[in-house]
C-alpha cells in the first residue's frame, strides 16, 4: 500500500510540468495560434528560474524570473506570428531552436550548482484524506499551483466571456473581427499566457522536480505537451488525464528498472511517450465532439482587414 501511494504521488509530480506547459499551449491554440516553441520557452524558464533562485536565494524570485522569461520568449514569437503574420510553424520551430541554444549558453556556468528546491507542504485537513490526501495534498507548492491553473483554465473556457472570445477568435478570426472583437490583442494575451505557463513548467523542473540545471533538461516534454493538447481535443479535463498518464508511465519505467526488469533502458525510457500518445489517440475517437472543440483557424496567419 505504501508503495502504491508513493508511486501515485510520484506520478502527480512527474505529470505536473507537462500539465503546466500543456495548459498554456491549450489556451494559446484555442485562440488559433500554434506555438511550436514550447520546448525553447520551457528551457529558458528553467535556466532563468534556476539562475535567479541561486543568486537571490529565493525560490519565489526564481519562479517569477522563469515566468517572465517564458513570457518574453512568447512575445518574440507573438511579434513574428501575430503582428507580422509569419508562418506559425516556422516561427515556433525557430523559437525552440533559439531557446535551446540560448539556455545552454546562459546556463553553462550553472551546471553542477545545486540549490534546495521546493519542499513538500502538506495542506491541513485535505492531506488527512486516506490515500488521495497523500497523493494530491502532500506535495510541493507548485503542484498546488498546477491544480489552480487547471481549474482556472477549465472554468475560464466554459463559463467566462473571455473564454467565449477566445473560442470565437480561434474558430474564425475574420468573423470575430467583423463582430468587433480584438483578434490580435486576444491572440497576444493567449500566446503570452502560454509563454508564462511554459516558463513556470521549466521552473518546476529546475526548482522542484530536480533542483539543478542541466542542458536540455526538459527532455522533449514541450513536444509531448503539444501532442497532448491535440489528442486531448483541446479539452482541459482530458489534458490533465493525459499529463498524469505520462507521469504514471515515466514512474513505471523507473519502478520496472528498480525491479531489475531485463530490458534496455532506452526502450523503457520510450514507454511514457508511447503510452501517452496511444491512450490519447484512443480517447479522441469521437469526431462530433472533436469538431466542436477544435480551433478551426489553428496555424493560419491572420491579417485584419485583408
Amino acid at each position, binding site marked *: 500500500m505504501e508503495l502504491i501511494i508513493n508511486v501515485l504521488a510520484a506520478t502527480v509530480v512527474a505529470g505536473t510540468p507537462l500539465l503546466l506547459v500543456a495548459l498554456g499551449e491549450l489556451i494559446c491554440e484555442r485562440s488559433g495560434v500554434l506555438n511550436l516553441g514550447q520546448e525553447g520557452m520551457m528551457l529558458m524558464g528553467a535556466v532563468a528560474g534556476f539562475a535567479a533562485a541561486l543568486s537571490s536565494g529565493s525560490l519565489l524570485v526564481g519562479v517569477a524570473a522563469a515566468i517572465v522569461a517564458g513570457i518574453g520568449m512568447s512575445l518574440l514569437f507573438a511579434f513574428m506570428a501575430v503582428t507580422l503574420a509569419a508562418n506559425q510553424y516556422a516561427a515556433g520551430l525557430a523559437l525552440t531552436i533559439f531557446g535551446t541554444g540560448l539556455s545552454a549558453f546562459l546556463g553553462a556556468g550553472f551546471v553542477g550548482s545545486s540549490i534546495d528546491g521546493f519542499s513538500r507542504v502538506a495542506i491541513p485537513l485535505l492531506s488527512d484524506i486516506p490515500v488521495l490526501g497523500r497523493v494530491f495534498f502532500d506535495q510541493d507548492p507548485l503542484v498546488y499551483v498546477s491544480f489552480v491553473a487547471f481549474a482556472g483554465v477549465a472554468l475560464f473556457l466554459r463559463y467566462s466571456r473571455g473564454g467565449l472570445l477566445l*473560442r470565437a477568435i480561434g474558430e474564425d478570426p475574420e*468573423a470575430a473581427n467583423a463582430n*468587433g472583437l480584438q483578434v490580435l490583442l486576444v491572440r497576444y494575451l493567449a500566446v503570452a499566457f502560454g509563454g508564462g505557463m511554459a516558463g513556470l513548467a521549466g521552473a518546476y523542473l529546475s526548482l522542484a522536480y530536480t533542483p539543478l540545471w542541466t542542458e536540455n533538461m526538459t527532455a522533449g516534454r514541450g513536444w509531448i505537451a503539444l501532442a497532448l493538447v491535440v489528442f486531448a481535443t483541446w479539452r482541459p479535463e482530458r489534458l490533465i488525464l493525459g499529463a498524469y498518464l505520462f507521469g504514471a508511465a515515466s514512474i513505471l519505467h523507473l519502478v520496472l528498472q528498480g525491479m531489475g526488469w531485463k530490458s534496455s533502458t532506452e526502450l523503457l525510457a520510450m514507454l511514457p511517450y508511447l503510452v501517452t500518445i496511444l491512450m490519447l489517440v484512443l480517447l479522441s475517437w469521437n469526431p462530433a465532439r472533436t469538431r*466542436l*472543440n477544435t480551433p478551426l483557424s489553428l496555424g493560419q496567419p491572420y491579417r485584419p482587414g485583408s
Partner: protein
Amino acid sequence: MGLCMTAAIRLKLENIVKEYPGCRANDGIDLTVGAGEIHALLGENGAGKSTLMKVIYGVIQPDQGRIVWNGHEVQVDNPAQARRMGIGMVFQHFSLFETLTVAENIALSLPPDEARNRNQLNQRIREVSERYGMALDPRRYVSTLSVGERQRVEIVRCLIQETTLLILDEPTSVLTPQEVSALFATLRKLSKEGCSILFISHKLEEVRSLCHTATVLRQGRVSGDCQPAEISATDIARLMVGDDTPISTQVTAAKPGATLVEIRGLGWKSKDPFGTSLSNVNLDLHKGEIVGIAGVAGNGQDELLKALSGEIRSGTGTISLEGLNIASLFPDQRRKLGVAIVPEERLGRGAVPDMSLADNALLTASGQGLVSRGLIRSGRVRAFSREVIRRFGVRCTGENNTAGSLSGGNLQKYIIGREALQNPRLLVASHPTWGVDVGSAVAIHESLVRLRDEGASILLISEDLDELYRLCNRLGALCDGRLSPLAPTSELHIEQLGQWMAGEFESGEVAHAVA
C-alpha cells in the same frame, strides 16, 4: 413639421470617397436614409456597394466625406462603435461561429454586463425572435442550423442591441420563396416601428415590392435615386448598367435537330441519410436546343448534374450520347466526347480560387492541344485563356489574375467561355447566373444561345423561372429526385410548372413524349 422632417433623417452620407490602389471604389457618394425607411442600395458587382457598407459599418475609413448620424457628424472607427451607435449588419457570408450556440454567438456582440446572465439572455432571445416571427432556440449549436435559420440569428443579434439602422447584404439569395416572404414581413414590421433598413440586392422585383426608396450605384458613383415601386424594373436596371449594356436578351426560337442524348431509367441511391436519390429519370436532349430543369434546391439537381458529368457513376440506367452509353465513363472520358459541365459552385468546383485564370483554363481544356507529352504548353494555355477573356468580355487585368479575385459574374463568364470555346456537344449548366450582376447575366445568356445555335445541346438547371422561360424551348421540374414530364415552354403554364415542382406528376414516363 419641417423640424420633424430634419430630425427624421437617420443617416446622411456626404461625398464619400474611398480609393484603393488602381480603383476609386466610392467616388463622391451621397446617401440619405430616413427613420423607418426601407432603402435599397442597388448596383452591379463592383459598383461600390460593399465598400460603402463597410464605410458605414466602420470596417474601413473613407478618404473623404462626412457621415452624419441622427444629425451629428460622426467618425465610425470600428464595427463595435457602429453597433454602439445602433447600426447592425447582416453579412452575405454570415459572421457566425459554428461551434458556438446561438446564445453564445449573440453574447459575443453584446456589452459584457448584458451578456453575463445567460438565462436572462436566453429569455430575451426568445422574446425578440418570437415578436418578429423568427423562432429560434438559443441553446442550439449554429452548426446544426439551416441557412435561413442562421440568417435569423444574425438579425436577432442586431435587434437585441436596439439597432436603429439594419444593413442587409443580399439577404434573399440564400432563402426559399417562403422564407423570403417571412423575412419581408419581419422587415416591414421593423420599419413600422421606426427602424431604418438598408437593403442591398440584385433582385429588382424584390426591391420594388419591399423598398420605399432606392439609391443606384454605378462605377462608384450614384447614378440615380428613385422610388422603386413607381418605376419599372427595366428602368432601374438601366440606371444600374448604364445605357450601353443590354438589359435582356432577345432569344430567337430554337431549331432543334436530331436527338443527341437519351437518358433512360437513370437512378442512384444516396448514401447520405439526408441526401436526395435519383429515381427513374428519363430525358431526351436534341441538338440545338436548351432544355430547362426547374425545382426547389435540394431536389436532386446536384445529383443529376453529377450523374451527367461522371462524378456519380454508380447509378442504374443508361445515358447514351449518340448511341454510346457513357453512364460508366469517368469525367475526363466524357469530356473528350464533348460533355461540358458548369457546376453551381464557381469557386471550388468550377474554378480553383487561388490559381490563375490561365491555370484554371488548363483544368478542363487540356484536351485543346494545351498539353504535349505531359508537359504544359504555357504559351498556348495563355493564348487560350486570353481568347476566353476577349470573346466573353471578362473584366480583369489579364490571364494571370487569380480566379478568386474576379467578381462572381466575371468568373462565371470566364467559366462558361472556357467550356464554350471547347465546342461541346452537350453543356450542362447549373444556376449559371446565380448571384451574377445584370450585365454579366445577359452576356452569359447570350453565350448559351450562341452555343445552342451552333448545334450544341444544353441542359439548364436553374431556380430562376424567368431565366428558364426566356431561354429554354422545353421545360420540366425535379422533385425529390424524380423528373416531371417535359413540355414546350410556350405551352407550359407557370401554375403547371409549379405543380410539377411540388411533385404533382406521374413519374417514369418518357419525358420527350410531350415534345
